């Protein structure tokens, strides 16, 4: 069950029932029924309307995106409970809606307009803290925002090709994240050489990846709520309160939420409440580190907040008992009975709570982690999540105690490997005649060659001619390499850009051509499948472009000549491209001729 943030008796369409705000949903259940009649997620809430203070009926209207009529609830508890209840709902919902709007703005920045435009409604007495958000809070807020966005998207998986608007949005995102692709897109599509659809044909995987990326559900950020005070002049400290921070604090420390609902606005004003909270012992108990002990003396006694103060959770047993059984492997107490009675020494190496001061902190961390996991996993039943095997024997069978079974792997049994390599080496040998010689004679000859080696070594002499020839050959080898390295970039920028453009454009045409020649993949989820006739037309068009490549390259070579650049270098640079284009042209004509 999701945790309930607040509940109140309220009627909907004149039927009495229970309005409930959980941490994910807003729901209303008619009295006597089990399943909620109205139920929608936080992210769907778009705006909030309230009846005036002091009106006969205490009403609350929640509008949804795409449904401006919304839901009208009337709080049915006697006054002033109804007002207090509504105040509570209003406050929670305001936070939620603010987040939803921020999320929407985020999507608007990068995409086409969302399906519906939210109606902005004046909210009476909105208790929104009017302090601009500070930087650390922003980053946190954004992560929460994207989480909400994702939650919403997760409900409708996007398959490229189904929805033009979505496709457009995805394409735009892909282009924004890949400048090279964007420039290619600009060169080819915006100049009208190929159509948008053609451009994305064969690039569906990019869109799919983007869609998958967006649909991925992000978890709750794992940071502990720990407002950092900023010191300003005069020794005062200042903490910026943002709606996000308020939400986080309430989420993390329900006791603060309770204190807030008990005291605001009757006993304390909003600002007063926070001011006193941050000076209270309660706040210090909530801080995420023990460094707060240094500021202990500035903490004042506070009659209101001290009521909510809980005793430090540093007893040997945690205040909050874990639900269900503890896994025997992590239970330090599990072996307790083995000591003492049997005569074994007491286990002194691992005792819980030896350092008492650390206990509350450790438990706070544990609780925080648990909360985080719960938000990610949902509230599964304890038995299911724990996966405790009731079979004790199965539980003590540890993987580490098993013999490791070595896997042999798959040996590469290459059959007839000679067959493969001999063909190549034979081709390389320039017809050396293998005269059959007696091996013994050969060995004898080799031995003969070793005779008188000392005399030989003393008479070592290298003929000048071969030595010079070798030196020249090697010098040329080195010089060519150095030459290439030293004169790398003397092609003028303008010409170079033209060459690059020509290259990328021809590459794209080639890609399009081969894509239309080869059979279509059937593993990509697209709805739009080109008919054979369309594909043939596209191939024809691409061949048209490709056959002009030679002209373009020739033009580049002429430009190079005009600019006084070595045109051979341009030719060499464009040669691979021309080869590839020729290959495509030959392929096309051969295939066409065969039909």
């Amino acid at each position, binding site marked *: 069950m999701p945790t309930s943030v607040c509940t109140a008796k309220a009627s909907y369409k004149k039927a009495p029932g229970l309005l409930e705000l959980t941490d994910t949903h807003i729901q209303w259940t008619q009295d006597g029924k089990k399943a909620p009649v109205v139920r929608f997620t936080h992210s769907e809430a778009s705006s909030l309307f309230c009846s005036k203070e002091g009106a006969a009926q205490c009403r609350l209207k929640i509008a949804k995106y795409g449904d401006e009529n919304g839901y009208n609830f009337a709080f049915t508890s006697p006054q002033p409970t109804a007002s207090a209840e509504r105040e509570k709902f209003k406050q929670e919902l305001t936070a939620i809606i603010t987040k939803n709007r921020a999320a929407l703005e985020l999507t608007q920045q990068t995409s086409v307009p969302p399906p519906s435009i939210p109606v902005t409604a004046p909210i009476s007495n909105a208790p929104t803290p009017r302090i601009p958000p500070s930087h650390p809070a922003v980053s946190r807020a954004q992560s929460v925002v994207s989480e909400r966005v994702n939650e919403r998207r997760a409900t409708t998986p996007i398959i490229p090709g189904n929805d033009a608007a979505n496709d457009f949005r995805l394409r735009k995102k892909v282009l924004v994240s890949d400048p090279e692709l964007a420039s290619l897109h600009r060169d080819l599509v915006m100049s009208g050489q190929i159509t948008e659809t053609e451009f994305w044909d064969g690039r569906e995987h990019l869109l799919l990846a983007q869609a998958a990326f967006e649909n991925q559900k992000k978890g709750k950020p794992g940071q502990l709520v720990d407002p950092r005070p900023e010191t300003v002049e005069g020794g005062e400290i200042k903490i910026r309160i943002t709606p996000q921070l308020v939400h986080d604090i309430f989420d993390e420390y329900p006791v603060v939420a309770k204190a807030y609902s008990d005291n605001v606005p009757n006993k304390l004003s909003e600002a007063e409440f926070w001011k006193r909270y941050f000076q209270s012992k309660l706040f210090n108990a909530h801080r995420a580190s023990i460094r707060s002990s240094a500021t202990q003396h500035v903490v004042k006694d506070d009659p209101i907040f001290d009521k909510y103060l809980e005793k430090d959770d540093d007893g040997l047993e945690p205040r909050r008992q874990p639900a269900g059984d503890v896994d025997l492997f992590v239970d330090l107490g599990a072996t307790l009975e083995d000591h003492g009675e049997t005569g074994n020494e007491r286990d002194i190496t691992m005792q819980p709570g030896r350092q008492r001061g650390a206990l509350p902190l450790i438990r706070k961390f544990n609780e925080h982690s648990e909360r985080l996991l719960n938000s990610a996993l949902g509230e599964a039943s304890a038995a299911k999540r724990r996966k405790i095997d009731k079979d004790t024997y199965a539980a003590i069978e540890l993987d580490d105690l098993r013999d490791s079974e070595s896997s042999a792997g798959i040996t590469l049994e290459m059959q007839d490997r000679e067959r*493969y390599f001999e063909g190549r080496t034979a081709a390389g040998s320039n017809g050396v005649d293998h005269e059959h010689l007696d091996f013994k004679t050969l060995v004898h000859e080799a031995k003969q*060659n070793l005779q008188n080696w*000392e005399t030989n070594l003393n008479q070592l002499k290298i003929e000048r001619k071969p030595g010079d020839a070798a030196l020249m050959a*090697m010098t040329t080898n*080195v010089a060519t390499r150095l030459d290439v390295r030293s004169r790398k970039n003397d092609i003028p920028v303008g010409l170079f850009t033209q060459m690059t453009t020509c290259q990328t454009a021809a590459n794209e045409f080639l890609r399009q051509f081969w894509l239309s020649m080869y059979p279509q*993949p059937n593993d990509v989820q697209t709805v739009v*499948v080109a008919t054979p006739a369309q594909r043939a037309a596209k191939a024809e068009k691409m061949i048209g472009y490709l056959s002009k490549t030679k002209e373009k390259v020739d033009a580049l070579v002429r430009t190079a000549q005009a600019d006084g650049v070595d045109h051979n270098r341009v030719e060499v640079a464009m040669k691979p491209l021309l080869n590839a284009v020729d290959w495509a042209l030959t392929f096309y004509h051969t295939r066409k001729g065969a039909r």
Partner: protein
Amino acid sequence: MSTLLAVVLDLAPAQWHAAAKASTSPLPLATFIQHLNAFLNAHIAANNDNIIAVFAALPGTSVMLYPAAEPHVPVPDANSYTPFKLLDSAIIHGIERELDVIADSDNEVPVALVGALSKALCYINRLTIAQPTAKNEHALDPHILVLSVSPDLSSSYIPIMNAIFSAQKLKVTIDVCKIYGPETVFLQQAAHLTGGSYIYLERRDALLQYLTMSFLSAPALRKTLSVPTQDKIDFRVACFCHKNIVDIGFVCSVCLSIFCQPVPVCSTCKTRFPMKILQRLNAARPLLPSANSNGAARNSSPAGGRTNGNGNATRTR
């Protein structure tokens, strides 16, 4: 900077016989030994800490010639520098001894180049491991020089590749000097993959010139010195079935064998491919439209580098 040079000599008697009779710039074994000794002496003379190891690849066997297991003590000679003499005589006597061993066999078997290469790597590995404890604090700069006369031995492809990978891991440079015989693709790869030089001798009679210019300097110095190296390496892909150089190949997704046309069963690893994929790949075959005329009209997967179940094709250009 001290270097550790391991020299691998390819001593195939038949190849040396042919080298001595070559039409252009012949190089008999005697001259080779002469030049080699001069080069090795130069190497140990260049730096006091230089270490040399010499390995011989002989028909069917490989051996470490220097440092020898049982050192041959030469007759003292006032006319020569003792370290040179020790080194040179150890090599000559080692070769003589090994030739005596194989002299009785009748057939020539290919030289054990891989064995010699592996021994060289093991030796280097041992010295590198022992190094931190040794008093020599300088980093050894190990390189292997292969002096090759034999053609590639196809059955040794996988061992050679494994040796190359070990060398890469040990950061050993492998230099290759191809003295005689056809270009060897394997050794070209070895030099390329380990950052060494591959030199094919055009003038065999100037061997020493090549050796000193290209291989005497430590690999670490080559950034500054610019030594010659091969200018082109054959990276083209040949299919396993017909040994054709292919632009578009079909690659077995299990063993990565390359074929010029889709095959129902991989001839290397015997993996069977589903019929459906074959049809689809057939449709993608370049320049052979008549083989499966209706295949092209069907909408199925292209070969352009897409993985598809078992059938996987890639463009290799």
